[in-house]
């Protein structure tokens, strides 16, 4: 069964460093998303991506964040200068036209 994959599973970085979180969505899906979950809190929407551009972003998704689909298969989330409060689980999700979203296993980002 096709699934969304994410790498790395765990990333430790120092404050101020850039990180890139990678996702491979399900191949025939059209919509792509990033969510984050701070430990013990709700899963929060960050950004949605469709037709090679951002279709919606939340207040959390400020200028420090960017997304890219560089080669038609990967979908990346970049955080330019990480802060302590960026420590969280980051989930990638994808969906076909009118169905449920499929979530990846997540990347745990720890900023020290």
């Amino acid at each position, binding site marked *: 069964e096709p699934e969304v994959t994410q790498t790395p599973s765990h990333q430790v970085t120092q404050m101020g460093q850039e990180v890139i979180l990678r996702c491979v969505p399900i191949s025939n899906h059209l*919509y792509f*998303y990033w*969510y984050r979950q701070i430990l013990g809190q*709700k*899963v*929060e*929407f960050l950004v*949605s991506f*469709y037709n090679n551009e951002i*279709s*919606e972003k939340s207040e959390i998704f400020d200028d420090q964040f960017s997304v890219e689909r560089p080669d038609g298969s990967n979908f990346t989330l970049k955080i330019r200068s990480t802060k302590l409060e960026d420590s969280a*689980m980051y*989930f990638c999700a994808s*969906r076909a036209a009118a*169905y*449920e*979203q*499929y*979530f*990846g*296993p*997540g990347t*745990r980002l720890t900023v020290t």
Partner: protein
Amino acid sequence: SQELEQSPQSLIVQEGKNLTINCTSSKTLYGLYWYKQKYGEGLIFLMMLQKGGEEKSHEKITAKLDEKKQQSSLHITASQPSHAGIYLCGAETPGGTYKYIFGTGTRLKVLA
């Protein structure tokens, strides 16, 4: 903005007992999704409800959406230790990008 509240926040049941988790929306739901999350892992899709009064079952789990489409319940019959985890309800928000907002989650523990 739309909010989802889940109750209870946590639940401990003896194996074999039935249980119900509720999800209440502050606005009419366009699509309601139930996911299960094991601690520190990804979200596994359980069920999707879209029509008022709709009910779906899979194995020992039944989900319902009320006629007004503002409340959903997830019922587990004869619970097993494998049902343990965090149950999240997610709602699709209108506007075209189909992003989700999530409830606060219900942490379920099943005692053998």
